[in-house]
C-alpha cells in the first residue's frame, strides 16, 4: 500500500481529532491552530478529495446553519481503512526516526 502524503496525513489526523464536527471551515481552523499556517481551502479540498477517493474518509450531511447561508455542512469522518493507513504511517515514522538523536539534527 502506498503511503499517505504529508498533507493527507495531517488532514486525516485533524478529522480524527475533530470527531463529529469535521467540515471544511472547522478543519481549516484546527489546522491553523495546530500548524500555525493558514491553509488555503484549495489545498484542504485537494487532500479531502484524494482521501475520499481512496476511501479513507466518508462524507455525510450535517445540519444546516445560518452562517452557511442556510446550507448543510458536509461532514467528514475517518473510515476504518483510514485508521489503518494512519497506523501504518505512524509506524513508519517511528521506525524511520528511531535511533536518530536530536543532537544529530543540529
Amino acid at each position, binding site marked *: 500500500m502506498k503511503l499517505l502524503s504529508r498533507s493527507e496525513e495531517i488532514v486525516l489526523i485533524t478529522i480524527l481529532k475533530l470527531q463529529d464536527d469535521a*467540515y*471544511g*471551515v472547522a478543519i481549516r481552523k484546527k489546522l491553523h491552530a495546530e500548524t500555525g499556517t493558514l491553509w488555503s*481551502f484549495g489545498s484542504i479540498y485537494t487532500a479531502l478529495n484524494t482521501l475520499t477517493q481512496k476511501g479513507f474518509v466518508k462524507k455525510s450531511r450535517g445540519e444546516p446553519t445560518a*452562517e*452557511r447561508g442556510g*446550507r*448543510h455542512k*458536509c461532514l467528514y469522518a475517518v473510515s476504518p481503512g483510514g485508521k489503518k493507513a494512519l497506523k501504518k504511517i505512524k509506524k513508519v515514522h517511528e521506525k524511520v526516526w528511531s535511533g536518530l538523536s536530536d543532537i544529530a539534527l543540529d
Partner: protein
Amino acid sequence: MKKRRSENRKPARVLEWILARFLREDEAYEKLGDFEEAYREFLADRGPLSAAGWYLVQIVRAVPAFASNFYFGSITMFKNYFTAAVRNLTRKKTYSVLNILGLAVGIAAFLMISIYVSFELSYDRFHENAERIFTVVSGGQAVTPVPLAPALMQEFPEVEVATRFQGLGQYLIRYKEKTFFGDRWIWADEHFFDVFTFPLVSGDEHKALKNPNSVVLTEATAQKYFGSENPMGKVIQWGGSDGERDFIVTGVMRDIPDNSHIKGDIFASFKTQTTFPSYDPENFGWGNYWCHTFFLLREGSNPQDLQGKYSEFLEGQTGQKRNWDYSNKRLTDLHLRSVDLIFHASPVSDVRYIAIFSAIALIILLIAGVNYVNLTTALASRRFQEVGIRKVVGAQRVQLVRQFLGESLLLTFLALAAAIVLAYFLIPVFNNIIQSDQPIGLFRDLKLFAALLLAGLILGVLSGAYPAVFMAGFAPSGIIKSASPAKSKKARLRNLLVIAQFAISIFLIISTLVASGQLHFIRNKKLGFTKDHILVVTLWDTNIRENLYAVKQEILKNPGVSRVSVSTTIPMKIDWHNSFYYRNEEDPENNHINSHYARVDYDFVDLFEMEIVKGRNFRKEIDEGRAAFIINEFIARKLGWEDPVGRAFHNQGRTGTIVGVVKDFHNENMHIPIGEVTLVLAPDQGWLMSVKIESENIPRTLAAIEKVWNEFSGGYPFSYEFMDDRYDQMYKSEIRLGKAFNYFAVLAVFLCCLGLFGLASFRVEQGTKEIAIRKVMGASVPELVRMLSWQFIKWVFIANLLAWPVAYYFINAWLQSFVYRIGIGWIFFLTAGVSAAAIAFLTVIARTVKAALANPADSLRYE
C-alpha cells in the same frame, strides 16, 4: 436595522454566482457553504472590504481548477459526440460518401477559384503608396508622350514625383562569352524607384538610373548573368537597334512580385536613348505616344481636380488647341479595370470575368451545401427513434443540437481534408482553365488558405445547423411512434432546393453552349484573309532587318515555303491609326479621314489571300520608290467614291495614289466593327515577317528557316508564332470563360446528380414496403419506375422554366459585346433542358429500377 446587518453579512450575490460557475456542480454546494462561513468570520474580524477582497481572491484561485475541469469535461463530451458521429457515418456508407464527396468537390472548386480571384485582386497593392500612384492615359491608350512626366512634376504641386518608362523589347545581352535573350528590357527614368516600391538590394535608388548607360537588374537576372559574382559595376553589352552598347550595372533590385502590372527583368536608364546616333528629338516630343507615365499624387490632393487642368496645361505645353483627352487612372485599377485601353505595359484582366468566376465559386459551394442539407434532413427521418429515445432519457434540446452539429463538423472536416487533396491534384487543370500568365500555386497565400478553411468550417456549421435544429425540435411522443413528423413541409423545402440547383445547372449548360457556339463562330468566320499555316516571326535583330531582301530570298528557296512578307503588323491586328488627306472639291475644309493602317510590302495581300475588288495589288515594277496606297471597301463607301483607283492620298507629308481597293476584312477582333483600313506600301519598314508554309513537313521547313536566320542574325535566337495561335490569343478571355463554363457546368451537373441520387435512394428505401405492396397488388415494373422517378424529373422541368429567362438575359448581354455574333436560338435552351432532364432521369432510374425489380416477398419480410 439588525435585519439589514445580517443581510449584509452574506457575500455579494454576484460574487457568489460567479464562484458557483467555477466550481464543479457536485461540489459547489458544499464549498459555497464553507466559503460563506469563512467569509462571515473574516467579515467579523477585519471588516467588509477585506472580506470582499478575500472572497474575490478565492474566485481567482478557483479559475485554474475550473479551466482544467472544463477542458477535460469538453474533451469527454467531444469524444462522445465523435463516437456517435463515426458510428452514424459508417452505418450509412453510401450517403456518407455522397455527402463527403459532394462537399469535397464543391470546396475544392471554391478553394481554387478563391485563390485565383484573390491573386487577381491583389495586383499592385504591394506598392507602399499604391493608393496614391496614378497613370496618365490619353485617348484610350495607356501611353503618353515622353515630356509629360517631367512637365507634370514641374507644373503641378499636386504631383509629388513622376516617372516614365517604356519597354516592349527583348534584346540580345552579352556578358563576356555568354549571350542571353528573352529578358524583358525596360527603359525607365531616374524617378522610377521613387514612385514604385521595388526595393534595391544594392545600389542607390535615387541615382541608379540617373546616368546614361546604367542598368538595374532583378536578382534573378543578375544571378543568371553573373552567378555568384558581385554584379555591381559589371559591364554588359546590349545589342539593340543602334548596334552594341555597354551598360554598367548600378543596382540590383528584388524580384518583381507576380502580382505586379509592371513586369521586367532589366531596367535601363531612360536617358541612354538620347545618346543614340539615331536619336530623333521629334520622337521624344509631344506628338509621339509611346511611353507610360506614372506619378505619385501628393497626400490630400484630388486626382479629379488635377485632371481638370490637363487641357489647359497641354495647350500651354504644345501650343495646340484641340480636344485633349487626358485622364488619370489608379495604378490599382490598371490590372482589372482598364480593358478598354490599348498599349498596356503588360496583359490585363477584366474585372467582369473575375466577378463571374467568383459567382461560379459561390454557386458551386451553394449547390454542394444544398446537397448536404437535403440529404441530412432526408436521412433525419431514419433517426427519429434515436432522437426520441435520447429525449425521453433526458437529453436536452441543446445537447442534441450539439451532437448533430458535431456530426456535421466531423463530416465537414473529412470533406475539407478531401478537398485539399483534390485541389492539390486539380490545380494544374485549373491553371489550364484560367489560362493565367502565372500559374497559381495552391499554397501561394497561406493566410488566405487559413481563411478558406475557416469558411469551410462555417459552411459545415451552417449546413449542419439546419438539420441539427430541425431534428432536435421533434416532439418525442410523435417520434417514438415512428411517424415522420412535419414531413410534407420539410419535403417541400427540399424540393425547392433541388429545383434551384437544377435551375443553376441548366443556366450554366446554356451559357456553355452559347459560349462555345460563339467561339466556334469566331474561329470559323470568313475573315477576309487566311490565317492558316502562317508563321509570324518578330524581327528583333537589326542584322536581319538590314538584309531583309536577301533573307526573304534565302527563305523562299525552301520548297516548303510559298511566300514571305514583311510588314508592321498582321491583318487581324491593324489597330494603329493616322490621318490620311485627300482632295475634296465639294467641301475643302473636310478633307481628311482617320484610318487604321499597316505598312506592308508587295507580297502582303497575296500571302494573306486578300481579295482585291478594284484596281490592283502593289507591284514592284510600277510602285517602287513611290507612295502607293490600297484602301478597303469601307473607306470607298464612306467617301462615296465609285472608283477610288488613281485618286491622290496624303499621309505624313507623303503624297501618293490609291492603286486598289481590298475587300473588307476583319482588321480587329469581333468585338469591334470593321472600320477604315489603309495599306501603305513600305517594303523595308516592317518588323514582322510572315511566312506561308506548306502543311507537309513543317518541322523540316522550320529547321530550314532557322538555318537562314542563324546565317544572317547577330546572335538573336530564332523564335516564331503560328498566326492562328495569335488569333486565338486575341480571344483569350473569351476562350478562358468558355472553358471555365464548360468545366464548371459539368461540375454543377455532377453535384446536382449526386444530390438527386441521394434523394432518390432515400425515397426508394423509405418506400420499400409501399413498392412491395403495390407490386403484390399488380403494379408493373414500368409503372413503379415511373411513379418513383416522376417526382424528380418534374423538378427538372420546373427548373428549366426558371433557368431559361435568366439565361437568356445574361447570354444576350454577353453576346451584345460582340459586333459579329450568333443568334440565340431555341436549340440552346432545348438542348440544355433535355440533357439536364436526361441526366437526372438516368441518375434516378438507376435506383428506381432496382427497387421496382426487387422481390416483394423480401421487402415485406423486412420488418
